[in-house]
């Protein structure tokens, strides 16, 4: 008998939008404004979430927020154990990170290894004033001492489950669901 795959929807487009609006407000509140701030999204889906968060902050504060995108492949810690080298994509940081407040954005926070790689990469670009982490979903199971400053939704999961984030720009719709095998 084939294995049954069950998909449970946990966030729809509206919930995601509300979560991002709240995150944008929390960012502005915590930093007392948006001065000298920049947002960096982690490829692939973090890139689009970063653009949305940045434009929400722009709406609240009326200032321009530069947006960068980052591919962390070259900073991975498993690069020499994988069978196939992952495709390297473009990193574009079109601003100076020195002395800026950097908001790092990704879709799912899981083991924390991607964030570790992203932190190392940002610091190779210069010394920011601080780096804060915003994620749409925190699904637990950290393998490193890393936590998010802004979380759209905490979703407790089993390690065997998958969290599938869909983003309009890539997948045609906004949704978060858990896939159980």
């Amino acid at each position, binding site marked *: 008998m084939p294995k049954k795959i069950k998909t449970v929807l946990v966030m729809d487009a509206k919930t995601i939008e509300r979560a991002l609006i709240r995150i944008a407000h929390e960012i502005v509140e915590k930093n007392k404004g948006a001065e000298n701030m920049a947002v960096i999204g982690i490829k692939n889906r973090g890139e689009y979430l970063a653009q949305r968060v940045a434009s929400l902050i722009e709406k609240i504060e009326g200032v321009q927020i530069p947006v960068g995108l980052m*591919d962390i492949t*070259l*900073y*991975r810690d498993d*690069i*020499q*154990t*994988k*069978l*196939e*080298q992952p*495709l*390297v*994509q*473009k*990193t*574009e940081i079109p601003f100076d990170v020195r002395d800026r407040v950097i908001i790092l954005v990704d879709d799912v926070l899981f083991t924390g290894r991607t964030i570790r790689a992203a932190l*190392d*990469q940002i610091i*190779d*670009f*210069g010394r920011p004033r601080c780096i804060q982490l915003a994620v749409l979903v925190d699904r637990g199971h950290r393998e490193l001492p890393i936590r998010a400053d802004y979380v759209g939704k905490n979703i407790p999961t089993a390690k065997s489950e998958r969290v599938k984030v869909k983003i309009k720009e890539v997948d045609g719709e906004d949704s978060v669901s858990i896939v159980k095998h």
Partner: protein
Amino acid sequence: MKLRSKHLLGLEGMTKEEITLILDTAEPFKEILERPIRIVPTLRGVTVVNLFYEPSTRTRISFELAEKRLSAEVISFSATTSSVKKGETLKDTVRNIEAMKIDMVVVRHQCSGVPYFLTQCLDSSIINAGDGAHEHPTQALLDLFTIREKYKKIRGLKVVIVGDIKYSRVARSDIWGFTTMGAKVAVCGPTTLLPYEIEKMGIEVHHDVDEALEGADVVNVLRIQLERQKGGFLPSLREYTNKFGINVDRLKRLNENFTIMHPGPINRGVEITPEVADGPYSVILNQVTNGVAIRMAVLYLLSGGEGKVE
């Protein structure tokens, strides 16, 4: 998508998809060269030996920089200052080096086939940095990258390779690379420097440079290898310059938005005039910059996990 071999011996037999993967991978690596800190930790713990049996400036420095920018450990070996002088054979030399635990070997040798020979006696990944008159794959890859960067395509362009085709490994790799990617390739040179039956590689052959340049987009001017000219292939360098040298006058035959390439080192005033080499259509220095990105891409794609099969 991955490369089928853990070695890079030549572009002969490589598929269009494999070449495209290398070119696509080189693009993000080029951006790293513009960063404030031009180094990424990707190949930490990987040891690369540069085994240079022939003199080289560009290729050697380019490989060393590419390796260092990926955080690999780099050992550079040159034949003139080693036990090769005491008569140690190539096989003994490399097996001794490998016994010290290394992962990759970049090799330049005056004999064709040495990189292949090394794959037979070592477990490391072997990268060909030029072997005899056989192939120089990373040079052709950086040529392809430079051309794709300018025209956003390779298919359909007419590429003319002018000069000493017979002794040029760059010519062979370029012919394989550009034809695989769908460009129209023509070669041109004195009969003595054109290999017999070269047209069987699927290319045009010209003996008259003006005829060859007609309607071309890219001209790759090869170096006249002065060290090989004692064999009487040319009556004189002056005659070569008159008949095949690329000067401003000859550029009129090319298509608009044409490009001049040269793999270096240049013999100014022999195969190319200084005005052409330094002209706005010359991408000679872009080629050198792109060389580092291409070599980083090759090192990255060939390193990594176990379980890769030939």
